[in-house]
């Protein structure tokens, strides 16, 4: 509770007591002479009214002075003055006091939810310990840390800037950023992300980034800006409030004047008009809808999901098609040798050894996987003496050394290998016995031969006779070029990519959460991509796509969703044209209001019909907004590495595993900090819940208000019920929104 809130609370409680005392004494007939006199009575009730209502009156006057009169303060001012004028003094005070109670509660609730969200995002480090050249440690503000500074991070401290560990060992708690509760190990050479909490050990780190470029600052900025990207629902409410209040004021005016002219009983009708005004306050909607989205964004960030705006949360609730990249998103993106298929007569181990040697200098992930496989093979060979291969193979077994090596992009490696062991390996094949070989092929040096390792294109370009493998997965072919120029095929190595452990489960969950179709895009060969797709039960698989193909594919899919929605439920949408344009364009734009104002707020004949028509159209649009059969949304899931264009083209682009990757954070609409696929169904659920709560609030508030408005107009509802319709509904809506923060 802030100081201001405490002060307000004191005033309200004092006013409440004073008011209760006045009411009791009047009802019990204690000071009949005082309460009997209308002026004294008025003055007595004016005390609690002014005690708590002054700020409201001030705001109402300020609004009028600034020519923006139509807000809730104005409504309250008019309503209470009207109540006083008709002699309903106690009710005027009640309205003001309870209105203030509601306002106070609102500010308290918003403050509380704001705090709980900022607590979630409490990742900002307070200080940094910089190690100076003379060895002294100085405590400074994180903003003063320069790149290259050496920092000490004590146990339990937050890592102030992104950096790399120079010395020390510890476990790092990344929960605040990723929602992941298992700490990560950090030792020399580990790159650390700011905002994480150091565990038991002390670390010395070198700053890689300044504070304002560090992950922590970027994330905070992102979350803070999130509430500025307003959702359609929020925008609808803002626009709604803009024309709603003036309309209500003129309706009330009409209610006060027209029937009293007819029936000649102005007191009753003015009282009813005031009731009408009190009920109509739009504050329940204006505050609870943004609060719901704010809560949804907060709930997601607690799970390590950063949503860049309420609009994305709203779109996410309507995702029909989940399009995912394969490598690195659904699969781990790390390769491993899954099978070795040597050509006849070539020993398996020899093939692997040659391949490993040829790829010795390469940094390509596939090369790495082959080397790893060879190392693993060597280690395993020592244990297994199964007779097929000699136990204890090592690099030296074949005595091969790597000569020159040339990388052909997109095809493979061509390298010159040499070594006496070679003869042994290939002796089984008589082709290599050709004594002429050194002379005929210039690339072949004494005691060596050219080794080809790569895809089918490479082998074809060298004219190697081979059979394309039917196997699934990436295939690396090996061949050697003997002196005669007659190349010979040595075999193939299959490279597989593991599907992420939770991928299957996550996809099933997504279907359960309401995603209708799952699509996989991949740059890999068709058979392999299809195999992974089958394994994951994807509905559709598109393979062999270049990055730019992926964009056009996503565009195609969006069009497909559009036409699907036109076919099935397009009736409402068609009746009012393209929903996106119509509902955005003129949800009873200001023109309507001005016309009504210009007419003295007393629309008659054609004018009033026109106004009614506009109102009903607006209401209809509101209905469309609710029941719209708009096209389902497409969400693209990528790792943010080279799919930025696709991320931005999709309705919602989600980047996975992006902790520390600036490019991904920049390009995506939603960023999942670690690479846990299970976060996606969680996100869909949060999104649905948020939008659900927002809609509940709209429906509940509008319905209750409409009902009591009608009752009020016909005299069945008094001020007390009106106060409930205003304050009570607002409080209930806020409480409803706050549920999101707990879940």
């Amino acid at each position, binding site marked *: 509770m802030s100081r201001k809130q405490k002060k307000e609370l004191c005033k309200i409680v004092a006013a409440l007591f004073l008011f209760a005392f006045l009411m009791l004494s009047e009802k019990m007939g204690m000071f009949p002479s005082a309460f009997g006199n209308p002026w004294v009575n008025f003055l007595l009730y004016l005390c609690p009214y002014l005690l708590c209502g002054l700020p409201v009156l001030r705001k109402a006057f300020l609004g009028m002075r600034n020519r923006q009169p139509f807000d809730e303060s104005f409504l309250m001012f008019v309503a209470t003055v009207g109540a006083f004028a008709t002699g309903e003094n106690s009710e005027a005070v009640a309205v003001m006091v309870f209105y203030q109670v509601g306002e106070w509660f609102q500010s308290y609730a918003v403050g509380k939810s*704001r705090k709980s969200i900022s607590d979630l995002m409490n990742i900002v480090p307070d200080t940094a310990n910089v190690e100076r050249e003379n060895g002294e440690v100085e405590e400074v503000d994180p903003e003063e840390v320069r790149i290259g500074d050496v920092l000490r991070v004590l146990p339990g401290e937050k890592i102030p800037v992104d950096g790399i560990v120079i010395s020390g060992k510890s476990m790092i708690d990344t929960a605040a950023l990723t929602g992941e509760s298992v700490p990560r190990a950090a030792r020399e050479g580990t790159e650390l992300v700011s905002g994480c909490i150091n565990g038991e050990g002390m670390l010395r780190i070198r700053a890689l980034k300044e504070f304002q470029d560090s992950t922590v600052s970027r994330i905070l900025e992102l979350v803070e800006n999130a509430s500025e990207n307003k959702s359609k629902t929020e925008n609808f409410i803002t626009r709604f409030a803009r024309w709603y209040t003036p309309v209500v004021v003129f309706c009330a005016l009409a209610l006060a004047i027209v029937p009293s002219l007819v029936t000649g009983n102005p007191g009753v009708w003015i009282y009813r008009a005031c009731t009408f005004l009190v009920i109509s306050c739009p504050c329940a909607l204006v505050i609870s809808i943004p609060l719901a989205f704010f809560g949804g964004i907060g709930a997601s960030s607690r799970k390590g999901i950063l949503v860049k705006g309420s609009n994305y949360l709203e779109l996410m609730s309507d995702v029909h098609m989940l399009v995912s990249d394969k490598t690195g998103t659904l699969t781990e993106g790390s390769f491993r040798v899954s099978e070795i298929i040597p050509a006849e007569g070539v020993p398996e181990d020899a093939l692997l050894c040659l391949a490993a040697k040829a790829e010795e200098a390469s940094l390509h992930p596939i090369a790495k996987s082959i080397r790893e496989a060879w190392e693993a093979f060597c280690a395993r060979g020592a244990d297994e003496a199964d007779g097929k291969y000699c136990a204890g193979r090592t690099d030296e077994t074949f005595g091969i050394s790597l000569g020159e090596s040339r990388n052909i992009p997109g095809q493979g490696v061509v390298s010159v290998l040499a070594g006496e062991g070679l003869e042994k390996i290939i002796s089984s094949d008589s082709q290599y016995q050709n004594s002429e070989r050194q002379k005929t092929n210039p690339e072949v040096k004494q005691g060596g031969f050219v080794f080809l390792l790569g895809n089918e294109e490479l082998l074809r370009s060298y004219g190697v006779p081979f059979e394309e493998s039917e196997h699934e997965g990436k295939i690396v072919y090996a061949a050697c070029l003997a002196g005669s120029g007659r190349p010979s095929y040595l075999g193939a190595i299959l490279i597989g990519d593991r599907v992420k452990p939770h991928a299957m489960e996550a996809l099933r969950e997504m279907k359960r959460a309401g995603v209708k179709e799952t699509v996989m895009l991949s740059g890999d060969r068709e058979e392999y991509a299809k195999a992974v797709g089958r394994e994951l039960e994807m509905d559709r698989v598109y393979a062999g796509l270049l990055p730019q193909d992926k964009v056009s594919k996503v565009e195609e899919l969006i069009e497909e969703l559009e036409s699907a929605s036109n076919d099935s439920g397009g009736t409402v949408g068609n009746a009012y044209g393209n929903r996106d344009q119509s509902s955005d364009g003129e949800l009873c734009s200001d023109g309507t209001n001005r016309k009504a104002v210009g007419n003295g707020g007393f629309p008659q004949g054609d004018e009033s019909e026109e106004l009614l028509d506009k109102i009903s159209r607006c209401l209809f649009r509101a209905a469309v907004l609710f029941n719209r059969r708009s096209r389902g949304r497409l969400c693209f899931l990528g790792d943010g590495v080279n799919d930025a264009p696709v991320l931005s083209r999709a309705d919602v682009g989600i980047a996975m595993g992006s902790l520390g990757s600036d490019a991904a954070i920049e390009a995506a609409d939603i960023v999942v900090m670690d690479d846990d696929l299970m976060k996606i169904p969680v996100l869909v659920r949060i999104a649905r819940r948020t939008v659900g709560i927002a809609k509940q609030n709209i429906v509940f508030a509008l319905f209750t208000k409409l009902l009591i408005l009608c009752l009020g107009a016909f005299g069945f509802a008094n001020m007390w019920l009106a106060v409930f319709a205003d304050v009570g509904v607002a409080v209930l809506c806020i409480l409803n929104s706050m549920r999101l923060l707990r879940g």
Partner: protein
Amino acid sequence: MKKKFKCEIDCANCAAKVEEAVKKLEGVNDAKVNFLTQKFTLDADDGRFEDILQQAIAVGKKIEPDFSVAL
């Protein structure tokens, strides 16, 4: 130049009003008053930033007496 300040604002509607008024000031490229995060963002001409900031606060205070910016 764009700068962000902590501010105090009482309601969403007030925030929108202040935002609109500040945007109309000369030299202001963009302004945002965020009720939920209680942040005031001002994007204004570099040379006169301080001056414009003071004006913006004054205008905000005129419209909403509760508006205050922590500098």
